[in-house]
């Protein structure tokens, strides 16, 4: 079997390198994997010849066709199209999708972008796809299409749209996951090695949940809780070390709810504390079993941190359970297996899969 992956970065092809080809749609990527005109034409031939059994799109940023009339004016449209023709990467994806319409190879989309909405272009891809794995999936899936066009102002109108209605069942939750290869060498941290109660490192200007939570953390610090908030950016190794040395890692939502930090905390033998999930999740972390959830309104974080720190033996148990859960479901290699299983190709692909 052979898999063709196209996107902002490799996902499936990282874990199945022997049976997959990856082409990048980002401007400025490695020329060896750039999706050029010449490569699209070659891929068209190969697709028509049935050389690929599965096509995977990995979306990491909003995909809107430059000719979409959502662009503000005709002048801007002209400018965008002209720029796109000069920088082919900008339209390669849409051009390739036009090629894909000529063949019956199954398409699977993995959408790991921050925004919980789809664009019009993406809705046509949804129609062509077999499954759409969405990281930031609202519990009511219809909200994915809010404001997509002027006829999608509310869910009542969205559910009347025949194009969208027939595709609701294809949408599945997905996890951002973590890169197992980065976490492989982390050493187990025993309770005696925990020198911080709560650790947080991250940008806070993109999320009001983070801004408000930081105030609560500072108040907790003033009240005697050992809170570690480094002033400068940590290296990756230092970040994992600080996670491991802390009982709790505060992991509030940023631009999306799901975050690498949720799983990195667990893999570092710590327990993540997250605000209530606003999305539907794949293999969710359970409150009190793998993590802690708090209400984002005032006082929620303080209550949960104080309650959690009262029972350190329970924290050690939760960290173990959470790590096992993350290993089983949220490693990117496992997510790749999940995607291939849904496509009905896991048995064929399994001998070729690696752990990254």
């Amino acid at each position, binding site marked *: 079997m052979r898999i063709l992956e196209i996107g902002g970065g490799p996902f499936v092809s990282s874990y199945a390198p022997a049976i997959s080809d990856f082409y990048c749609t980002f401007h400025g990527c490695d020329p060896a994997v750039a999706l050029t005109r010449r490569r699209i034409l070659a891929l068209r031939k190969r697709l028509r010849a049935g050389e690929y059994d599965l096509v995977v799109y990995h979306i990491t940023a909003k995909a809107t066709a430059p000719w979409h009339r959502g*662009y503000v004016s005709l002048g801007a449209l002209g400018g965008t199209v002209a720029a796109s023709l000069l920088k082919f990467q900008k339209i390669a994806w849409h051009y390739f999708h036009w090629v894909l319409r000529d063949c019956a190879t199954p398409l699977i989309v993995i959408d790991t972008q921050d*925004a919980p909405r789809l664009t019009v272009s993406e809705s046509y891809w949804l129609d062509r796809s077999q499954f759409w794995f969405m990281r930031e999936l609202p519990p009511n899936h219809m909200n994915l299409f*809010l404001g997509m066009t002027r006829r999608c102002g*509310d869910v009542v109108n969205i559910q009347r749209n025949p194009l969208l209605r027939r595709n609701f069942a294809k949408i599945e939750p997905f996890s951002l996951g973590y890169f197992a290869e980065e976490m492989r060498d982390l050493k187990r941290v025993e309770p005696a090695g925990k020198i911080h109660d709560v650790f947080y490192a991250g940008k806070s200007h993109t999320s*009001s949940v983070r801004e408000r939570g930081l105030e609560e953390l500072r108040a907790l610090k003033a009240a005697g809780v050992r809170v570690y908030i480094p002033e400068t950016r940590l290296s990756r190794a230092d970040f994992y070390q600080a996670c491991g040395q802390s009982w709790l890692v505060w992991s509030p939502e940023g631009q999306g709810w799901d975050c690498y930090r949720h799983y990195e905390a667990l893999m570092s033998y710590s327990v993540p504390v997250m605000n209530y999930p606003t999305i539907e999740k794949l293999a969710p972390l359970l409150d009190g079993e793998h993590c802690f959830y708090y209400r984002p309104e005032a006082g929620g974080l303080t209550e949960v941190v104080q309650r959690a720190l009262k029972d350190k033996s329970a924290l050690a148990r939760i960290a173990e359970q959470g790590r096992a859960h993350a290993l089983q479901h949220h490693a990117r290699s496992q997510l790749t297996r999940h995607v291939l299983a849904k496509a009905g190709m896991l048995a064929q692909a399994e001998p070729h899969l690696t752990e990254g």
Partner: protein
Amino acid sequence: MPQKPLLLADEWLLGVVQDIDLPVALVSMQEHLVPRHTLPPVVEVLDRKQALAGLQEGRFSRLLMSPRRGPFWDKQRPFVSRVWEMRKKIGDESLLRQYAIPKAALACGVPMTVVDFSDTFHIAEWDHPLLQAAETYWFREMPIHPYHLLLNTSRRFRRYSNISKNPLMREMHKVQPISLGLSDARQKFVKAAAKRHDIFFSGADTGPARVQARQILQRLKAGGEFQIYLPETTLSQEDFYQACAESHVVVSPSGWGWDCYRHYEAGLCASVPVMNYPTIRRYRPFIDGEHGFYYDLEGDGLERCLRKILSDKTRLVEMGQRARAHVLEYHLFSKLLRLVLKETA
């Protein structure tokens, strides 16, 4: 003559105004909606011309308005279609009220407040000027992340990077959460009753969370482990309140929006609401384990939650009382109106 607030109300706000106990002037966004409601004598119903004259004369202390129903000049339509649509819009009394009154209030220096009790969780493009003009913008389905209020609402707001740079983001501090609340008049349906059911759920299947909850409860009911009251038909209001009062917990999953009258109806009847995790920022929320419970929508989240909480019914009775006190203190329409009108009792 003492000044009073002027309300420019859609159907949601008109429902809330029924419980007002302060003198206010009211203009309905749609004329035909007023006769459907029994308005108290303190409400003076005006038409557009009277409201505009009152604004000129300085009779109103504040304009409290609902979000507008639609655009006058729809930027998302092709130009020819816009011009064609104008044919119907010129002389549309409803649209004139929605656009002329806030414009006059702004010109006369009357402070403005917007309150959105509807299901939607974004601010439509035609209401962006209201966000700039208003002192406070109360929002029921307020997303946790402020970008979501604007995402996809206009051509400029398709990407986070564009939203973050827009001057409208500087107005976001004005957006405050408010609850859907409950009419004060509903208290007449509440009667003390012995707890006969463990779990009660009744509601239309609007939204996947409700469909899923009904399926789980049907399965649990067939298992016979809990006393579950799951009526097949729609109950009358009296019967609904009685069933709430007779149940230890009321399952209250989200519908089109997360907030729901049922959350507060359960609390008012001294029962414990069991809700899926909130996807919005809330006003005076039910606290997990104190006034209500929250569950994961995925898998057997509801079942796990119910099994855990129904093992201690004494605690549930105490929590029910706390939930009732919480609703009476914060979530009745009269309390919410005082909050948005900045009046203290």
